[in-house]
């Protein structure tokens, strides 16, 4: 029973015409799979490799370089909350914000809450420095945060 549905496979195949070879679809394929399963399992990796006519180790080589992707042992929660820790946010309380959220959610940075709802991580410069301190919640960036306003944003999603 394959891990990747026909729908996911078709989404990956839709990327092929954009590039002269299938290897270039590695990152797009990893994103498509990770978005659905919140992780890329070894089996999913093998199926991606098959679709892209690569060896599974080549997909693993690429995937392991980018800290973005989680393996099946450490899947992402429903929400990925990414608090910036680079210079402009650090200068305006970003590290205290992250420490506060870790305490309030009862996790260490990089971990997921017990109910699997939130994965809290640090991010490097998110490119929203005019609104420091800021964080990404999945695909949306929020700035000018306090610990309370950040928590409210996370809880309301």
């Amino acid at each position, binding site marked *: 029973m394959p891990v990747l549905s026909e729908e996911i496979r078709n989404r990956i195949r839709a990327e092929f015409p*954009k*590039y*002269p*070879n299938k*290897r*270039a*679809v*590695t*990152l*797009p394929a*990893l*994103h498509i799979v990770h978005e659905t399963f919140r992780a890329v399992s070894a089996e999913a990796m093998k199926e991606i490799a098959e679709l*892209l006519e690569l060896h599974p180790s080549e997909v693993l*080589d*690429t995937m*392991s*370089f*980018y*800290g*973005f*992707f989680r393996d099946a042992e450490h899947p992402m929660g429903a929400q990925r909350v*990414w608090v910036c*820790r*680079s*210079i*402009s946010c*650090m*200068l*305006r309380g970003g*590290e*205290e914000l*992250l*420490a506060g959220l*870790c*305490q309030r959610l009862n996790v*260490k*940075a*990089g971990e997921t809450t017990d109910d699997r709802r939130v994965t809290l991580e*640090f*991010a*490097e*410069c*998110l*490119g*929203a*420095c*005019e*609104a*420091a301190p800021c964080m*990404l919640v*999945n*695909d*949306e*960036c929020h700035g000018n945060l306090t610990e309370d306003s950040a928590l409210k944003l996370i809880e309301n999603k």
Partner: protein
Amino acid sequence: MPTFEPVLLKRIDKPNSTSLAGYRADGGYEALQKALKMAPDDVTNLVKDAGLRGRGGAGFSAGAKWSFLPKNHPGPIYLCVNADESEPGTFNNRILMEQDPHQLLEGIAIACHAIRSQAAYIYLRYEYGCCYRVLDAAIKECYAAGLLGDNILGTGFKLNVYLHRGAGAYICGEETGLIESLEGKRAWPRIKPPYPAIEGLFHKPTIVNNVETLCCVTHIVQRGGEWFKSMGVPPDPNNKRDQGSYGPKLYCISGHVNKPCCVELPLGVTVRELIDVHGGGVWKGRKAKAVVPGGISMGFLSANELDTRLDFEGPGKVGCLGLGTAAVVVIDDQTSMVDVLYNCCRFMSHESCGQCTPCREGTGWMTKILERIRAGRGKFEDLDLILEVANSMGIIPGTTICGLSDGAAWPVKNAIMKFRGEFEQYIRSGRKSITPAQELMAAH
């Protein structure tokens, strides 16, 4: 002094700034029509003569780079748009893409005509989700209106533009790291030569250009090289290597200022004017202790270097690496330079791709030395040690494949040289600075 009339940011506050209809109502895509009537090499020469230097950090002449492409190549030739903006303190490309996507798309089309490319990839950092949605919509509008695809504006020019999302790696902003990542591999920069213009993406001739640089192309074609050169700073007659610093520039200001923002000015504004006039001054009534001139890779200016001009030559004159991304970060006099430098080193250590030993090990050791100092266990010899490590890594000493290590070393060099007293005092006092945040992030 007369207020500068924005060029790149002219449309961003308009309610229809992202739509094709709005862009066309403001004269959009007239420059592309003009360019398509010119021979490709004439467009390249126009851009070269206008003195457009890349805004991604290296400041290399854009037109000169385009002219490095091999003549009469059967193709394909590729354009990669470097939208991986990840230099700490920098957010101007994000604003350009989110608020005026067609300005970029028009610049891409003009550049592709000039370099004879029929395929452009926008390598967009994953974290810019809003840019992705805006650009995706704008690209679809272009295809529907015959501004992209097989027969652009009925001229027979063919161009496809593809959006390619990254996955959170700073090194993908390095042009060959970007290319490796686009090809589906780990983003390990390549040894140069060969340069991408000769052998780049999929081993074909490739030009990699920054977002802001391509936006300038649109306006150069529309208004001419003389207009572009009417802004900025002409070359210093005493410096044969100075190519001049022409055109408008987006400056980001963040950190300890009252009004963090992005402002557009002619190249050459002083740091002092940027902070006091445009950034609302240093916050909380404090003074600036140090200022990052162009993203952290460029190092630091001290408080008595604030009259430095932010053009391509200015920061180098006071020992910084260069103009970089022109992202100014202000550090007030209540902040420890030890903490600031630690933050910079930790970033670089995290982002080092690991390929070259001096960078992989060096960024790691510089960070660990600072951790030791911040844990109250520093020694005076640590300052000489960290400088020795910094001086051993980079393209400049010739020990690494790419410039990330130069950017990692420079803040260390500037900080120890310009603020040594503060570091010595910190060590002497046995002070500790490990905050709860650090312990929570220790395992990464």
